[in-house]
């Protein structure tokens, strides 16, 4: 990318998503958004757009596209996500908002039994170009039901695609990719990232501050190397990519060169990028905020062990949330989260 400092366009994650949604809705009349308070004040002209989405991702859109295409819903996730499936199967490209991923339990049937399976069960004759946006992550003092990560259980299901942006640039590119994709795609937006800007003032790429105005797609199924290094690979996803970058900076101070792979795509997995990095550094620390059992972290550890066995100088190492629900009390929640110190210490243990 050749943008200069002068035309640098620093957007927050939220602004980047908002721009992606707006641009896709402008481009394609079949795109519409549904969810609880995606506008807010529904049905009352003088109060519409009171919220603009629980995380303000959809702010302002109702003014441009009207209440038909920016549609507030009752609290009926099974009802409206199922309606998203039906609309997608009949020519629309719905974006539905599942406010917190922990609410999947009331609408899992629509996602896992209908959206995920229809294309296959129907012999490829029906497509479900549905985008589900949801928020993930602890660190907001919101306790066990409003702090989960859970992409692992969605990635478990064939038929779903799962992506997880790590900053404004990837947020815009992955939302656009999701909307244009002909399969159901779930975008997992971390609560601690929304509102933030890009990670790095120095850089002019996906990890920099700049977000190009023109629409662009980050391909689903591709991971990126967020930082190059030679001694150890740190793999992060969404917010933990930032944790890995912080850890890499600290490791650099201690004389180690850590490479950071940003997963971005959880399903499908970019096995090539992951294996290439690990075969180069011969050591890997996998950092994931999801529960540890049957998780993306397990997958990555198994993948590396099976496919890069002969290259590894040390066993793969995982730094994840513990096998506990998310506690409310802030000191416990701080212990719960994977953080820079834990990543550094895990890295040092394999570097030793």
């Amino acid at each position: 990318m050749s943008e200069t400092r002068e035309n640098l366009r620093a957007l927050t994650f939220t602004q980047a998503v908002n721009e992606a949604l707006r641009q896709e809705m402008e481009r394609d009349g079949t795109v519409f958004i549904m969810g609880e308070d995606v506008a807010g004040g529904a049905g009352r002209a003088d109060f519409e757009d009171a919220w603009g989405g629980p995380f303000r991702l959809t702010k302002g859109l109702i003014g441009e596209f009207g209440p038909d295409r920016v549609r507030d819903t009752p609290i009926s996730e099974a009802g409206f996500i199922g309606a998203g499936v039906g609309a997608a199967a009949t020519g629309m490209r719905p974006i539905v908002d599942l406010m917190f991923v922990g609410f999947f339990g009331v609408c899992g049937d629509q996602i896992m039994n209908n959206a995920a399976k229809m294309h296959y069960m129907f012999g490829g004759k029906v497509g479900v170009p549905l985008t589900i946006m949801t928020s993930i992550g602890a660190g907001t003092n919101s306790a066990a039901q409003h702090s989960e990560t859970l992409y692992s259980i969605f990635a478990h299901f064939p038929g779903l695609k799962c992506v997880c942006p790590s900053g404004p640039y990837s947020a815009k590119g992955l939302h656009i990719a999701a909307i244009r994709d002909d399969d159901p795609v779930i975008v997992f937006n971390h609560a601690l990232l929304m509102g933030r800007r890009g990670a790095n003032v120095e850089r002019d790429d996906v990890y920099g501050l700049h977000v190009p105005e023109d629409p662009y797609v980050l391909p689903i199924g591709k991971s990126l190397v967020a930082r190059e290094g030679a001694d150890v690979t740190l793999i992060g996803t969404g917010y933990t990519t930032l944790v890995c970058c912080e850890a890499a900076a600290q490791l650099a101070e201690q004389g180690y060169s850590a490479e950071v792979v940003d997963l971005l795509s959880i399903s499908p997995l970019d096995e090539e990028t992951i294996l290439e990095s690990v075969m180069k550094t011969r050591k890997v620390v996998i950092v994931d905020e999801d529960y540890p059992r049957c998780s993306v972290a397990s997958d990555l550890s198994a993948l590396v062990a099976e496919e890069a066995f002969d290259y590894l100088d040390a066993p793969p190492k995982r730094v994840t949330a513990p096998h506990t629900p998310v506690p409310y009390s802030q000191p416990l929640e701080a212990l719960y989260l994977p953080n820079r110190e834990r990543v550094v210490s895990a890295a040092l243990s394999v570097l030793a």
Partner: protein
Amino acid sequence: MAKGIGIDRRTLLWMYETMVTIRRFEEQCKREADAGKLSGMHSSVGQEAVPTGICAHLRTDDYVLGNHRSHHHCIAKGVDINEMMAELLGKVTGTNRGKGGTMHIADIGKGMLGANGVVGSNIPVTTGAALSAKLKGEDTVSVVFFGDGASGQGALHESMNLAGIWKLGVIFVCENNRYAEATPFEYSVAGGSIAARAAGYGFPGVRADGQDVLEMYEVAGEAVRRARAGEGPTLIEAQTYRYLGHFGADNPLLYRSEEEEARYRAKDCIAGLSAHILEEGVAGEAELSAIDERALAAVTAASRFADESAFPEDRELFADVYNDYASGRFTRHAESGA
């Protein structure tokens, strides 16, 4: 005006042929199951009038969605029975290339947006099809068929509320065949009326005799008119009966009486319509017999078509998980599998 008077001859004969075709098809399915060619299915024998009376009002671009017991919905909506039978036998010529089977038949070209094996699961999807129509400014109608048992699922309630507030062109058709598996309707439905629930959502709920295709036709006519006119949803509770067991070899006499069965069989929908046709002079015995024979021949041909079709090739296992790649690429552990 007496029931059925005013329905044109073409419609009456279409309804007759549709119901007879469904019955012959289901009988053939049972033979295929008995022969071990499929592992079982939910027979719709006895319930033919419900989708027939409704689909008589529908266009190809209207949507129908079904449940686990959906062969009759598919046939009434015009799905090809050759392809249906091939699907049941898992053949690549099936509606779903053999990958869906009895509980998942779909043919979007015919407006059959799919059966569904999870009770209640298709109700929200139907609401979405209706929302689609509204957003596109089309007057198509979306119909979902579900059982009395499905009325216990929250998805129905959520969808009735959504369809109610958005005035969607959905018709909720409950086929109340009095049982969910072995559980009687009287036990499982508080208040005793599914139709009555619609009032809580501000739209009409009507009970109709689902054994009487003329009554179904009439009730459906008003519901379809409302839906097309943008006046919102209707809930129809069709009182019907499945003559056979729930699935496969289930013996219904373990949970219901012969007398009850006889009572419903006595008001058989096909016999009822044929009597009406003959009484009103719409057609004669010979013409009906010709239809009977055509239906039987079509079903026999379907069975032959299915038999002669091939199974899907091995690579189909990995096809159509996604639109843009076969999942084998991302399946590390299947190398010895296919």
